[in-house]
């Protein structure tokens, strides 16, 4: 008679019976945040910026309305933005911003500054802050200040940062990006950093998923990198 059986008999003698309890999933007592189902990020590296996002659009957290949506919007040649919040508000604002920016660029007879693009978005978000529900990450390259990353929060605050993350999936990767980010990374290191961060967020957030869209913006131009789901890095429990 092995130890396990001995133990079981001991329990039975003492009056313990083994019940098979049906495991129920815990209900979510926490309320939903205002960000949409998404993970977006932008990171500065030595010579450029990488802006990235997942590709899932969901309705109510239970239906995936699109598996391959591109959330990286080009608002000028070397300036991209990605959205967090209501898709409708975001599309309206970026359309307006694109127009204003191209007009501004023609007036100045030179490509717009990334800060100008971020400011345009900020103006729109701030003046309409009661009605809008969208935040943006703007990243790009210009001749004056090189690579830059700006975040425009939902109320209309504008902040310049070396890197920034947003969307519902971003909560899960704050620790990871805080620990792993180093200033002046190379292009490959930065791509790996951004891909890992997106993969980790997609792994934990049910409303982020699909492929990882990454855009690398440098003085030389713009390059779109897509990492399909099965090529995303896998971690210890997968």
């Amino acid at each position, binding site marked *: 008679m092995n130890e396990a059986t001995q133990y079981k008999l001991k329990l039975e003698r*003492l009056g313990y019976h083994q019940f098979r309890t049906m495991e129920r999933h815990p209900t979510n007592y926490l309320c939903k945040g205002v960000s949409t189902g998404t993970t977006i990020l932008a990171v500065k590296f030595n010579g450029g910026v990488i802006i990235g996002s997942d590709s899932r659009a969901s309705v109510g957290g239970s239906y995936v309305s699109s598996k391959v949506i591109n959330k990286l919007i080009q608002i000028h040649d070397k300036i991209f933005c990605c959205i967090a919040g209501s898709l409708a508000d975001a599309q309206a604002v970026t359309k307006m911003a694109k127009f204003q920016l191209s007009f501004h660029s023609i007036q100045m007879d030179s490509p717009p500054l990334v800060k100008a693009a971020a400011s345009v978005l900020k103006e729109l978000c701030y003046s309409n802050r009661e009605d809008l529900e969208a935040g943006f990450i703007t990243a790009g390259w210009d001749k004056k200040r090189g690579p830059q990353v700006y975040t425009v929060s939902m109320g209309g605050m504008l902040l310049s940062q070396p890197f920034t993350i947003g969307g519902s999936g971003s909560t899960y990767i704050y620790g990871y990006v805080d620990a792993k980010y180093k*200033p002046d990374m190379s292009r490959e290191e930065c791509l790996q950093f951004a891909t*890992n961060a997106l993969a980790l967020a997609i792994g934990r957030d049910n409303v982020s998923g699909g492929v990882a869209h990454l855009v690398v913006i440098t003085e030389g131009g713009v390059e779109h990198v897509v990492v399909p789901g099965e090529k995303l890095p896998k971690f210890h429990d997968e």
Partner: protein
Amino acid sequence: MAAVSLVRCERGSARDVAPDWMRQELRTGTTIMAVEFDGGVVIGADSRTTTGAYIANRVTDKLTPIHERIFCCRSGSAADTQAISDAVTYQLGFHSIELDEPPLVQTAANLFREMCYRYREELMAGIIVAGWDKRRGGQVYTVPVGGMLTRQPVSVGGSGSSYIYGYVDSNYRAHMSKEECLQFTAQALSLAMERDGSSGGVVRLAVISEHGVERRVVAGNQLPSFSAI
């Protein structure tokens, strides 16, 4: 022309003018973590207890002994978790005396689960049970809000845990040594404390193994810092 609206005014009580920390329940909005390694477990927690915006206790000990080599890490309502762990400590002690041998970690975890599931509507408690027993070595069981029970090699909990899922997923490896686990836990907790307003203070760590329990404290100024911005 000014519009006049008649609003019914209730006579205010002292409670209306009391600051929010006198009206809020005591919560361990927190970050807790437990990791299995060959030979035992490492558990860790921050040390902040809040009532609303006031930090009621900045040096709380959230690592509660349930038995000689079984601990639990508490998150959620401080009152609920203290009451549950007191009840389970009693039940487990009694069970251990009946059995005349040290209890299994799985038994302790099941007792927590029984209570958390039965009273799930009234309780707000997320608990990680970790310890060492002779049959299965170091084990970590998690009983989140709602009363589910599952065993995991590494588990994080509390409000600050959301921020470190990515870090834990990418940095955890199986078969780490005791020192590596301690380092990993301290770093993960520091990262969470830096981002979560309800977590902070010092990092309390404990190593539970066949040889007993070894407790450590990492003070605020000794924590690794990560701010790049």
